[in-house]
């Protein structure tokens, strides 16, 4: 069998081509080209409209929903922060009262013993502070 010459295209064979064309019908001659072209144009216009939009156009399109949403989110955030701050203030206001009550309720001797007790071994403080009466 003859080997093919792959260095170039084989010469055109008009007889083979005509025979094939005779045997294999081509696309129908009655194709409605206007309809086909209009269909392509319509679909292309839709694709072009989609791909032609830049980011700011998408942003503009979304702004109608995005601006109210952002405002609502801001209000919610503000309310949360205000609530948290009020809670912190309340906590700060309430914290000293029990301490004060506890301090006032302490007997001075108890207070003294809380600093220097008998078995503490802190001689400097014992010397510096007068011994409570009756001890």
């Amino acid at each position: 069998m003859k080997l093919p010459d792959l260095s170039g295209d084989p010469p055109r064979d008009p007889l083979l081509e005509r025979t094939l064309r005779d045997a294999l019908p081509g696309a129908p001659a009655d194709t409605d080209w206007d309809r086909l072209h209009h269909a392509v144009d319509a679909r292309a216009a839709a694709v072009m409209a989609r791909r032609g939009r830049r980011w700011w156009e998408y942003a503009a399109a979304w702004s109608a929903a995005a601006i109210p949403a952002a405002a609502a989110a801001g209000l919610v955030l503000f309310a949360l922060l205000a609530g948290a701050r009020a809670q912190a203030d309340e906590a700060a206001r309430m914290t000293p009262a029990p301490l004060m009550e506890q301090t006032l309720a302490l007997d001075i001797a108890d207070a003294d013993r809380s600093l220097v007790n008998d078995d503490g071994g802190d001689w400097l403080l014992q010397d510096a502070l007068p011994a409570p009466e009756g001890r």
Partner: protein
Amino acid sequence: MAAAAVAEAPRSRAVAQPPEGPDDLLLVERVRAGDTEAFGTLARRYSRRALSVAYRVLEHPEDAEDLVQDAFMVALEKIDTFRADRAFAPWFFRILINRALNARKARWVRRTSEIPADAPAGGGTPEREAERAELRERVAAALAVMAEPRRTIVKLYELEGFSGPEIAEILDLATGTVRWHLFHARSALREALGSYAP
């Protein structure tokens, strides 16, 4: 207009011929810039040949039309990936033929119209018609046993007038591979056609 001549004269070498009107690459640039009309010009330039190629693969007129539309839309969607240092036509026909072969493989085709033995072939004497019918049967039988991409290669070369390098680019094959397939396809067809072919 050359584009019309391309479609109407099946043997013309459309891909190699510079078309009249704006250059393909100029039109592509305009399409990229958002010019829908430029895309319409491209579509009209290649639609006839595209339909012919699609029909050769799918052998069904409505499916071929649908495929042509889809291929143009895919080309438009991917227009930014088209490299300006290449020709537009092989790039577009690559999209078209890949989709056609996939559609055919996936049996997307609603019905494949076998070439009817009694299909009209342009008139003639009863003897001539009988001869043509037998010819169609032989060609159909030879192509039926021919595997892809050989079948598509021989159709593109013999009937659509693409060159070996163009087919190679369209089918993403080496040019030598295309010529190898073409050689064997032609041999098979000549054998099948017997006395009908030279």
